[in-house]
């Protein structure tokens, strides 16, 4: 029995302590009760809710999902009841749970992000916020917050000012320099970063000669994106001092271990739940057994094991940062 517990907000007095590092990812686990009756939900370390927006959204027209090689595209369009109805309905249910509930928030302006954080600040049943910066900024012509370091810092700082809850900022892989974004959100006051959100993709139905998804583009998730996600985790873990939560394509223990060794203190599982929900909660037990077999008393002993400087991940000096963006052409 290795120690699997982890605190994802070590410098926040409200802390975010999980019994284990396996978290269900936003948008793939509804509001925490959908998979009940299928799996033992309470064996997870935590779950992240579907993305909540300031106003109710009915989401995109259908089709919203399609399969791609090793992955899937989704364009749900953030269907959700809006922050006010959300607060009435879900947190009261979660209050009785042992499982921490993290609320994923999405908005199109800094002010809206701050407003949602303020409303959630003292809501019982809410353990932490995950700030989804893969959202278009209406004040920047639809350019995503998460693609720009300054905009990412601004959102984080505004949310930080609005709540004392632990804040995880969820990074977008569309950013060219993911390390710079991570540094910016750390500066903005994030307690942790999670990465990656989906890559923007498209499939075309060649019979109909138009995009498969009604929204045309969608977010690419699943094993196909795992190498990108592991690489970004590896980069980010080298440049920030806050915990890193890795995700993207985890389908089993070995995938999760890749993220831990790349420097993630915890992982999230999204698409993997759709295919094999039982196997996903099973990762917790498999990890425990694996650590025992490796003679590790704590999960922390393998976090960052594949980083160039070995473990634990450390904040790099500014002149090391170019190294954190490794690129070598074919």
């Amino acid at each position, binding site marked *: 029995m290795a120690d699997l517990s982890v605190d994802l907000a070590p410098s926040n007095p409200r802390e975010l302590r999980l019994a284990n590092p396996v978290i269900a990812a936003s948008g793939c686990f509804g509001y925490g009760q959908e998979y009940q009756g299928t799996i033992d939900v309470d064996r997870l370390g935590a779950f992240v809710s579907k993305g909540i927006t300031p*106003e109710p959204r*009915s989401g995109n027209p259908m089709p919203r999902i399609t399969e791609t090689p090793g992955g899937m595209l989704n364009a749900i369009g953030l269907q959700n009841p809006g922050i006010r109805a959300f607060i009435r309905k879900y947190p009261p249910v979660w209050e009785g749970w042992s499982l921490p509930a993290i609320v994923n928030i999405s908005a199109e302006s800094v002010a809206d992000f701050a407003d949602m954080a303020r409303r959630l600040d003292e809501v019982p049943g809410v353990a932490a916020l995950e700030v989804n910066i893969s959202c278009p900024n209406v004040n920047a012509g639809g350019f995503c917050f998460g693609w720009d370091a300054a905009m990412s810092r601004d959102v984080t700082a505004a949310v930080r000012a609005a709540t004392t809850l632990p804040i995880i900022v969820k990074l977008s892989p569309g950013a060219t320099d993911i390390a710079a974004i991570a540094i910016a959100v750390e500066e903005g006051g994030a307690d942790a970063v999670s990465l990656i959100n989906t890559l923007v993709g498209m499939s075309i139905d060649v019979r109909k000669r138009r995009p498969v998804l009604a929204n045309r583009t969608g977010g690419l998730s699943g094993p196909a994106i795992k190498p990108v996600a592991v690489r970004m985790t590896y980069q980010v873990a080298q440049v920030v001092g806050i915990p890193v939560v890795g995700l993207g394509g985890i389908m089993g223990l070995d995938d999760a271990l890749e993220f831990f060794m790349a420097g993630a203190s915890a992982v999230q599982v999204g698409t993997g739940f759709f295919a094999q*929900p039982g196997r996903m909660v099973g990762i917790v037990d498999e990890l425990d057994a694996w650590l025992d077999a490796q003679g590790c008393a704590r999960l922390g002993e393998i976090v960052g094991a594949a980083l160039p400087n070995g473990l634990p991940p450390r904040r790099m000096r500014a002149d090391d940062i170019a190294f954190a963006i490794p690129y070598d052409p074919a």
Partner: protein
Amino acid sequence: MSESIDPVPEDVATVRGSRASGHREFAATVVATEREMGDCTLLTVALPPGVAHRLRPGQFVNVLCRDALSLDPLLRRPYSFFGVDAANDTMTLLVRPFGRGSQWLAARTAGDVLDVMGPLGNHFEATSRADRLLMVAGGVGIAPLVHLTDEALARGQSVTLLMGASTASTLLSAARLPAEVEYVVGTDDGSQGHAGFVTDLVPDYLQWADQVFACGPDPMLRSLASVIRQHRVGRRPSVHVSVERSMACGVGACLGCVIDTRHGMQTSCVTGPVFPIEEIVW
């Protein structure tokens, strides 16, 4: 698109402490396979004890259609029940080999083990007050209607089953159905029965039927909706259709399978796949 809706499922108040922990993911062994409807496979699959009696017509299972070490295809595929044998703890699936998932599944043989999740979704409900049931099937959409027919006959209801297919060889063989069923067919190419859409036959039975149940491709359901609008008097008979949408989770968690209804976007995996026809916004 309809109004924004609040997608809170009915059972939101189920707290974890008090829920039943009926696990819905299980291994199931194929016990027999048969060819049917031309290229389709009827797969009879052994279930863990206590599962079969819970499977209702129109519900479905999500099957992982790949080898243990393969990730292709990534997502499960939904299949409704063609038949359920509670005494022997088996279910039968009717699979048309179409794309990657279904070709894999249709190629299974006795002894192969499937990773199955279910039962999922709502189901067709023939009320006890209904005497005469009309079923309208397109292609493999016949599967849940055969299951429903079995149940209805056991309760003493009368069933007329209309089936449409592209050509005679892809119709369900009449020998698969109990003798009591009135089985009327149509084919696109006129090779057997009515030449044209199976929905053309519906008006003749609307007076007779107490309830109508349909399952088939979207164009068939859309055509049925227009037949109903034109020929039904008031709200009788009630018409329930099972819709087919691509699914990811099958449990209401991803919101990928929704259908636009008068009550907003509803999941076809939890609130559906069966909906009253007039509630669907086509």
